[in-house]
C-alpha cells in the first residue's frame, strides 16, 4: 500500500490511466472469484477483457459498477481513489454498463427506460423534453437514432442494445462497460455495434469490452487483458498478439481453435421434413412450410438469429411439441399432427436431444449428477434394468461417463448446479450419446461453455457423425455452424431462406441470409 501511494504522489504513470484497479479480491463463500486483480485502462481506448466462463470477468465488472463490493483492493479513477458502493456511485463517477441481459423494461417506452434513475425532477413532464433532445443529440453524434416513443418490446435486439448504450451515455458515462455485447446479435448488427464503439472511442469514451470471442478482441480492441480462474494472467497490446496466444492464455494449455473435420460421407436419408408448420400459442406462424432432409453421416447446421423458428423446430423433432402442418419422417417413421409422440417415444426411435437450454430442458439442477445422467432413460439398463432404480448401478454408470467425458469434479453425487457450464453440458452430452442415437438434435451445444469444453464437444460431434449418425446442429454462433456443418440451412421468421454447402459458406453471406435476404444461393 505504502509503495503504491508513493508511486502515485511522485506523479508516475498513473495519471494517464482513466481507470486503475489494484489488487482487487473478492470471494463468494469458499470460491475466490477475483484474486489480486491489477488492471490499467488508458483513456480513450477500447480495452478487451477476455476469459472463459467463470474466469471472474463478470464479477470484476460488477465490482467496478458497484453491484458487488470487493473484499480488498483499490480502485483509482483518473488517478484518484474511488469508493464505489452502489451503481449510483459508479454512475456519478462516469461509469456506465451495458449488461449481458439487458436492464430494460419491455413494457416501457425507450424514453421511460432512458429516464429511469435520472428523471430530472419529481414530475416527469420537464425531464421528458430534455431527455428527448439529449437522445436526439446523442443519436446524431454516434449515429444511433432510436424513436423515443417506441415500446422496448417492439424493438429488435440490436435496437435494444442501442437503448442501453444511450442510457449509459445520457448519464454522462466516460467509461462504458459492455458485457458480452454480441452474444445476441446477428453478424451485421455486431458490425454496426463495432462502428458505434469506434465512434465512441473517437469521441473520447473509454470502452471496456468483456467477451469470450477471440475474433471480437482482434477486430476492435486496442489492448486486451486475459483472465483465468479468477486471476489476471496477461495483458497484451492487441496488435502484438494473435488468437492462438490468447486462447492458450485463457485456457492455460494448447487448444485447437478449429476442429479438424474430414469430408463427410453421407449415406441414406435419416430425417425427412416435409412442409412442416406450426403456430405459437398466440396464433402466429412460427414455422412455415419447412422442407429439408438430413442424411446419416452428415451435420446439417441450422443458422439464424435466435427466435426465428429454431426452438419450435427442435421441440417438434424431439417430440416435445406437435406439428400443426406437414409431417416428418424419422428413420422411415412418419409423424404428423395426428401421431402420438412424446420425447419418450422419440428416444425409443433412437433420437438423441441436446436441448438448447440445458437448465430448462437438459438437467434438473437440484438433482445430483448421477440422477441427471439417466434422465429420460429410467426404463433402460442405465438405471440397472430392474423395476426399481438401482442406485449403485446408476452411480457406477455416472462415474464411468465422468471418466470418459472428463467431467470435473468427478463426483457423481454433486448437485448438477455445482458444476460449471461446460461440465454441465458434458453431462447432457454423455447421457444423450450413450445409446448411440441414429439422429442427434443439438441446440447451442457450446452456449456458456468454455473453450476447452467446446473443443471436446465439437470433437465428439464430428466423431459421432463419422460413425454414421445424422446430426442437426442449431446454433446462433456462426463460427460453430461454419466449423462443423456439412450443409447449412438458414432460417428467418420460421422459413428457410436458403441452404448452402458448408465449405462454400462465409459469414457475410450467412449474415445477410439470417436477416432474411436471400442470395439466390443454390443447394
Amino acid at each position: 500500500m505504502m509503495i503504491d501511494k508513493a508511486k502515485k504522489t511522485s506523479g508516475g504513470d498513473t495519471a494517464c490511466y482513466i481507470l486503475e484497479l489494484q489488487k482487487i479480491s473478492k470471494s463468494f463463500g469458499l470460491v475466490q472469484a477475483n484474486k489480486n486483480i491489477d488492471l490499467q485502462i488508458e483513456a480513450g481506448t477500447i480495452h478487451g477483457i477476455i476469459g472463459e466462463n467463470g474466469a471472474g470477468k463478470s464479477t470484476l465488472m460488477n465490482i467496478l459498477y458497484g453491484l458487488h463490493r470487493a473484499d480488498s483492493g483499490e480502485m483509482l479513477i483518473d488517478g484518484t481513489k474511488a469508493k464505489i458502493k452502489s451503481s449510483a456511485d459508479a454512475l456519478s463517477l462516469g461509469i456506465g454498463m451495458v449488461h449481458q441481459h439487458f436492464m430494460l423494461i419491455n413494457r416501457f417506452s425507450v424514453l421511460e427506460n432512458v429516464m429511469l434513475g435520472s428523471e430530472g425532477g419529481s414530475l416527469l413532464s420537464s425531464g421528458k423534453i430534455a431527455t428527448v433532445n439529449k437522445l436526439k443529440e446523442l443519436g446524431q453524434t454516434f449515429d444511433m437514432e432510436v424513436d423515443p416513443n417506441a415500446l422496448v418490446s417492439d424493438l429488435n435486439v440490436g435496437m435494444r442494445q442501442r437503448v442501453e448504450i444511450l442510457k449509459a451515455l445520457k448519464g454522462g458515462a466516460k467509461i462504458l462497460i459492455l458485457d458480452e455485447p454480441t452474444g445476441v446479435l446477428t453478424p451485421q448488427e455486431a458490425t454496426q455495434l463495432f462502428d458505434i464503439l469506434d465512434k465512441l472511442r473517437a469521441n473520447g469514451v473509454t470502452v471496456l469490452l468483456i467477451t469470450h470471442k477471440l475474433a471480437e478482441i482482434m477486430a476492435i480492441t486496442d489492448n486486451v487483458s486475459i483472465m483465468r480462474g479468477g486471476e489476471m494472467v496477461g495483458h497484451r497490446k492487441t496488435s502484438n498478439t494473435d488468437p492462438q496466444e490468447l486462447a492458450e492464455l485463457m485456457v492455460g494449455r494448447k487448444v485447437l481453435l478449429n476442429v479438424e473435420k474430414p469430408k463427410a460421407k453421407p449415406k441414406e436419408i435419416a430425417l425427412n421434413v416435409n412442409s412442416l408448420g406450426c403456430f405459437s400459442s398466440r396464433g402466429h406462424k412460427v414455422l412455415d412450410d419447412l422442407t429439408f432432409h438430413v442424411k446419416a453421416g452428415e451435420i446439417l447446421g441450422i443458422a439464424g438469429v435466435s427466435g426465428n423458428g429454431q426452438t419450435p423446430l427442435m421441440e417438434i423433432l424431439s417430440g416435445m411439441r406437435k406439428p400443426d402442418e406437414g409431417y416428418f419422417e424419422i428413420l422411415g417413421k412418419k409423424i404428423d399432427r395426428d401421431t402420438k409422440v412424446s420425447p419418450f417415444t422419440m428416444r425409443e426411435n433412437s433420437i438423441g436431444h441436446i436441448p438448447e437450454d440445458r437448465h430448462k430442458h437438459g438437467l434438473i439442477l437440484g438433482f445430483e449428477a448421477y440422477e441427471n445422467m439417466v434422465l429420460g432413460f429410467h426404463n433402460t439398463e442405465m438405471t440397472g434394468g430392474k423395476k426399481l432404480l438401482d442406485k449403485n448401478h446408476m452411480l457406477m454408470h455416472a462415474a464411468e461417463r465422468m471418466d470418459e467425458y472428463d467431467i470435473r469434479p468427478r463426483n457423481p453425487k454433486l448437485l448438477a448446479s455445482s458444476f460449471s457450464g461446460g461440465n454441465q453440458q458434458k453431462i447432457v452430452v454423455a447421457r444423450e450419446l450413450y445409446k448411440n442415437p441414429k439422429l442427434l438434435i443439438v441446440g447451442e451445444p457450446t452456449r456458456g461453455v468454455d473453450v476447452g469444453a467446446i473443443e471436446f464437444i465439437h470433437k465428439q460431434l464430428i466423431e459421432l457423425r463419422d460413425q454414421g449418425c445424422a446430426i442437426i446442429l442449431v446454433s446462433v454462433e456462426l463460427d460453430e455452424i461454419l466449423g462443423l456443418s456439412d450443409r447449412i440451412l438458414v432460417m428467418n421468421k420460421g422459413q428457410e431462406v436458403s441452404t448452402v454447402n458448408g465449405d462454400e459458406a462465409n459469414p457475410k453471406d450467412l449474415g445477410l441470409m439470417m436477416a432474411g435476404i436471400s442470395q439466390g444461393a443454390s443447394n
Partner: protein
Amino acid sequence: MMIDFLFQTLWALDATLRVATPLMLCAMAGIFSERSGIVDISLEGKLLSGAFVAATIASLTGSVWLGLMGAICASVMMSLLHGFACITHRGDQVVSGVAINFLASGLTVILGIAIFKRGGQTPTLSSGERFRPIELWFVDALDNVPVIGTIYRELISGHSLLVYVALLCVPIASFILYKSRFGLRLRAVGESPIAVDSAGVSVTWLRYRALIVGGVFCGIAGAYLSISHGANFVREMSAGKGYIALAAVIFGNWRPIRAFWACLMFGFLDAITSRLQDIDLPLIGEVPAQLMSALPYIMTIILLSGFIGRPSPPSAIGVPYKK
C-alpha cells in the same frame, strides 16, 4: 313513474358509492403495492386493523381526526411488518400477507375485549365522533333545477368527507403512477427490480415507500368503515372487502381508473343485493338472500376465470429481489 325510477336509480347509485368507497381506497393501495412487485393479499388485514384503531381512538378521545390518524398509523405499521418480512427478509409475500390477515383478525378482537369488554365490539360512537355527511355548496340553489338538482342533492352531495377523499384518490393515484418520478420508478421496480438497481435507485426503499402509501390508503378505508359508514367496530367488519378490492385491482389490470370502475361494479352488485332480496323476479321467483350476498364473489370467480381477457400483472410480482 319516471320520478320513481329516477329515485330508485339514484338510491342504488348512492348506495354503490358508499359501499365502493373502501374498495376504491384498498384497490389503490393494492395497485401501489403490487405495481412495486409486492403481492398484497394483506389489504384485508390492514383494512380491519385500521377500522379497529379508528373506532377505538375515536371512542376514547372523542376525536374523528385522531381516529383517522390512528387508523392510518395502524395500517402503515402492518404494511411495514409485511415489508420487513418480504422485502428485508425476502420471505414469501403471500404467506406474509395471510399472516397479517390472521394477526389483524385476532388482535382486533383480543384488544377490543381487553379495552371495552364488549365481546370485541367498540362502543357506538355519537355523531360528533364520526365523519358526518357534508352538504356541498349550492345544493339549495340547484334544488329548483329539475333532475340535475335532484341528482346533485341525492347522489353527489351528502356523503362523508372520506367518500370524497376516496374519489379523489383515484385520479391522484393515476397521476402519481404515470406522471411522477416516484411512479415511474415504482412501475419499473415491479417490472424489473434489477434494472432499477442498476440505474442506481434503491429497490428496498422504493418498495417500502409503495407499501407505506398503500398503508395510508388502507388506513383511510378502515376509518371509513368504523367511524364514517358505521358507528362502531364489529369483529371481522371488513368482511372480505380487502379481497374484493384485490380482485378489482386484477380486473382493472393494475391500472387505477380501470380498477375504479371495477370497484363501482362490485359496489353496485353489493348495493342491489340487499334491494333485491325481498323482490320476486320474473321467472326466477324470490332469490335467496344468501345467494344474493354471494353474488360479488361468484362474479369475481366467473370474471377472473377468463372473461376479462388475459390480465397482465407486473412481471416481477411476487419475486423477492436478490442481487
